[in-house]
């Protein structure tokens, strides 16, 4: 199992009803279906990804997350998941709020724009960082909101969102004591498990 999926999987109760926002090719839901007997759907915008989900037998619904999630009933899912897409949405705060309106719990993962390489790139080169982990130039990046772990946690505090667990890892989804000491400086990806 992909290491980030393994982390997320720990937080999903067997047999629960989940919604995966921006589910990609359906790998996560496929794993959760097999190992945790979950039900639920992925929401996805890309046709090729949707075709791959359907081929796998993963239930996927074509949807642009920027259109909102207003038509989905309150508390209709056990867990709402969003991996590596929050920074690509037009209104990340509204998405996080919606996740905890329609789901009892939420799982969010995103890249840390406060990682030291990003900080130093910007301060040394004076240009927007391009790295292996963030490979896009500023004008073509799908990442339209840049935020750090600390930014995200401030948002959660302001909105009364309770963080149940936070896991900070590097790009290979590995952790070590240094990352644990200075997560917002050394961590590349964070995985948050949240509730109201």
């Amino acid at each position, binding site marked *: 199992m992909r290491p980030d999926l393994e982390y997320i999987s720990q937080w999903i109760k067997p047999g629960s*009803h989940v919604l995966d926002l921006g589910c990609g090719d359906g790998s996560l839901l496929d794993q959760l279906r097999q190992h945790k007997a979950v*039900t639920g*759907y992925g929401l996805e915008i890309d*046709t090729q990804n*949707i*075709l791959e*989900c*359907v*081929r*796998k*037998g*993963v*239930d*996927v*619904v*074509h949807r642009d997350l920027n259109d909102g999630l207003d*038509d*989905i*009933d309150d508390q*209709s899912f056990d867990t709402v998941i969003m991996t590596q897409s929050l920074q690509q949405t037009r209104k990340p705060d509204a998405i996080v709020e919606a996740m905890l309106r329609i789901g009892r719990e939420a799982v969010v993962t995103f890249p840390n724009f406060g990682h030291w390489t990003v900080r130093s790139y910007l301060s040394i080169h004076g240009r927007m960082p391009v790295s292996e982990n963030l490979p896009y130039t500023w004008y073509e990046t799908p990442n339209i909101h840049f935020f750090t772990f600390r930014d995200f946690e401030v948002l959660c505090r302001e909105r009364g969102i309770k963080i149940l667990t936070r896991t900070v890892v590097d790009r290979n989804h590995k952790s070590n004591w240094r990352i644990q000491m200075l997560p917002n400086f050394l961590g590349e990806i964070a995985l948050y498990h949240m509730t109201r």
Partner: protein
Amino acid sequence: MPIEIPADNVGLVSPQIAQFDEALPLRSGRSLAEYQLVYETYGTLNAGRSNAILICHALSGNHHAAGYLSMEDRKPGWWDACIGPGKAIDTNKYFVVSINNLGGCHGSTGPTSLDPATGRRYGPDFPIMAVRDWVKSQARLADRLGIEQWLAVVGGSLGGMQALRWSIDYPERLRGCAVIAAAPKLSAQNIAFNEVARQAIVSDPDFHEGHYYEHNTKPRRGLMLARMLGHITYLSDGSMREKFGRDLRTGKLNFNFDADFEVESYLRYQGENFSDHFDANTYLLMTKALDYFDPARDFDGDLAACLAQARCRFLVSSFSTDWRFAPERSEEIVKALMRARKAVSYLEIDAPQGHDAFLFPIDEYVRLIGGFLASLTAGGKH
């Protein structure tokens, strides 16, 4: 004429007839004492009888969905693009059954058939069919063919509504349900178009209150107008612009009321051709079945509660330029299925052809259906 039948075609096909002597009670309260269904099959039913797929046709469709009827046949069946060896509905894998609905005019009992009670043609006295009546008759054919459970029931437009009805009325009898370019019920605008089509037919002096057979005539003009109107709603603004633009037939304006523009001549041709081959009473009846379709009605308008009956997996699909049954209409079905926690996948396919797109072999569409059917086979019986 197909000089040579392509390798991915089911080849020469011939219709079969099933006669039923047990009365069929109908939603209208009436019943059909006896009736026949004409159908075609493609591919082979496997030993476990688990690979059968039912194709439901749309408003003006029929049982001839794939292959050629003879070597002189100019065109293959109406969904030949998707049914055949190696195609989305792969006849190397699946046993495909395609039925002409009751009330039709291609061989199944309908207005042009003789009423055993009177010995005359039914004409306008043929009972108005509801989608659930068709589905019931299709279930009886499935019994006859020894098919306890369809691998999938598949349909576009009015055919998609039949597929949806299958999932509600016979939840144990299908594993997959593909609802393509359909709607959970018609809008006022949809009904309005149907009403104009019907008025075109019934106001034709040759209609004779539906008894035109006895006058050895048919309401050709009315049927032609109905089809011309319908045809506009099957195409998109963009596809008409692309196909015809403002092209002139003679290269100049003629300052009379003949067809100046190519689009006029195309519609006239389509309408005339249709009026030669289709029965007006059938057209009236089919449009009524569309207007009446509203499965949520039995559940105080709650589609999710209605679909709670279903047990199968669903595939819902729409086309970006379809304005007859726009993507939003398919999304209504999807939302209700999600609310009812049913297994559903949905894709809006980017296609320029309007409502008609469901008949075209669009790459994503073909892969969508093929992938869905394959996933049903992989999943095992529920």
